[in-house]
């Protein structure tokens, strides 16, 4: 059964990649993630159903929807973190810069080096602030102390936290406040200079002030990075994103410019959700 699915997937991969090379020449790499007919099962639960999404480079794409709609599952599929759950199966393709990341031959470590992730709860390593930032670069073979120092400063500046921590780089990251920890995690992701940053409800565990800081940061980051943000907070999606996808029961109900979604949704379910009638 699963081999059948795999075969099917591989067939799709080939045709997909051909298409993608054509598409790439036409669109000159504007699309960073192109999801086609993605289905995902957790054992027997069909969590994602026929997802088709094109995510643009250097934009903020928000994914909204009620709990259990598959939005977190989807974002975790984009860097294949979803595979950590035992019994996950997928069909369909996700082309990242033209290459299908769901293909077995795609090295997941390479993918995750280019696609950083920030989690719902801040999860710094129980090491010093400095070591948290240098973790990624060191894993990927950067050992030069001078370069590492530079990376640390740039990443922390990039995540708006340098001024707060520059005098205590050797202190344990767990001495920071929740909001600072989350910005440290963003800085940690920036340290390997990824192309994409995935954020899975990055502000849901934070107070309003810290949330605001991270929202400002996201606006700044999109100049250089493509950002995909899962949020349960619709105002947040409206404030910070360029495009919004509304997920419901594992399907994409609507995907459009954020402005359109929030002012003139074409699907009545989207309207019900954003006006707070359910969710």
């Amino acid at each position, binding site marked *: 059964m699963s081999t059948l699915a795999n075969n099917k997937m591989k067939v799709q991969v080939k045709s997909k990649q051909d298409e993608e090379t054509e598409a790439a020449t036409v669109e000159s790499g504007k699309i960073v993630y192109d999801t086609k007919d993605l289905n995902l099962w957790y054992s027997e639960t069909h969590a994602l159903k026929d997802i088709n999404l094109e995510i643009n480079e250097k934009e903020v794409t928000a994914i909204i929807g009620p709990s259990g709609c598959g939005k977190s599952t989807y974002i975790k599929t984009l860097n294949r973190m979803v595979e950590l759950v035992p019994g996950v199966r997928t069909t369909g393709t996700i082309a990242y810069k033209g290459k299908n990341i769901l293909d077995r031959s795609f090295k997941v470590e390479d993918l*995750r080096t280019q696609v950083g992730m920030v989690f719902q709860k801040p999860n710094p390593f129980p090491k010093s602030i400095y070591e948290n930032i240098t973790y990624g670069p060191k894993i990927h073979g950067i050992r030069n102390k001078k370069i590492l120092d530079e990376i640390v400063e740039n990443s922390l500046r990039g995540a708006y936290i340098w001024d707060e921590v520059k005098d205590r780089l050797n202190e344990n990251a767990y001495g920071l406040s929740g909001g600072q920890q989350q910005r440290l995690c963003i800085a940690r992701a920036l340290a390997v200079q990824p192309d994409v940053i995935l954020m899975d409800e990055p502000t849901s565990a934070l107070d309003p002030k810290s949330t605001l800081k991270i929202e400002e940061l996201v606006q700044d980051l999109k100049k250089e990075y493509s950002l995909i943000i899962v949020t349960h907070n619709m105002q947040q999606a409206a404030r910070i994103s360029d495009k919004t996808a509304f997920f419901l029961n594992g399907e994409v109900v609507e995907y459009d410019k954020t402005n359109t979604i929030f002012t003139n949704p074409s699907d009545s379910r989207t309207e019900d959700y954003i006006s707070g009638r359910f969710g």
Partner: protein
Amino acid sequence: MSKNSEAKKEAVNVSEMIAQNKKKKNISNLFEKLIPTILFLLASITILTTLGILYTLLSQAIEFFKRVPIWEFFTGTVLKPLSQNPEFGLLPLINGTIISTIIAMFVAGPIGLMSAIYLSEYASDRVRRILKPLLEILAGIPTIVYGFFAFTFVTPIIRAIWPEVEATNILSPGLVMGVMIIPMIASLSEDAMTSVPNAMREGSLAMGATKLETTLKVVIPAAFSGIIASFVLGISRAIGETMIVTIASGSSKNFTFDITQSMQTMTAYIVEVAGGEAPAGSTIYYSLYAVALTLFVFTLTMNLLARYISRKFREEY
């Protein structure tokens, strides 16, 4: 109407019952106040026992040191308690204890830690559910069984490979002691590693780290204090282990670093002397207490060291 009155009646009864029970409560209130005192007394049994042991050891050891100078005891390399001119040098016993412990930890440390890594990071739930209890069975085998396993099974094998090894030697019980300690280190280290939050593994994997990098650079450092604690407990166990060395290492009080020879540990000496006929009040009788006190100081030091190390290297999360 009738339902209503019934309900009312019931309500009255309940409040009356509660009021009556409240009167009885005086006794249970007393009980409530006594409980902490009783629990405190029970808890202090451990402390009192420790103090009692310490008192016995000290008072008798002092008796010993009146006859044999402390300096001679701790620096003497000859131990001949039963000879005409008895000599009480502790170094052969300390040497035997340390060497057997080192051999044991060479076996138990790496194998225990690797097993823990496998169980906590790589094994599927099913494999873990089968393997962990099996590992703990190993910990439940009586040490005397390990002792004759070392003497009748492991020693002949070692001697077949390495003929210079004597029939009683420190190598074989050291190795078997290591095997005995594996489950302890594996199980405690595994607990420490499993309790590292998954969010940290995810954080590392999401940076593009492999599973091995994640294990070595995030999980093990985060669990380091627990792992060190398991090692130190393993060392304590090896220092205190008695039966295996008594059976398989003989009772030669050699002061040597040659692991092919028979050596005696502090524990084995206590068994030998206590099992023989050491008349109460004789020097050899008091020497038991001096050795036991040294043993106590050894394990106490290990425990304090463990605390210091685990506090110093703790990665708090």
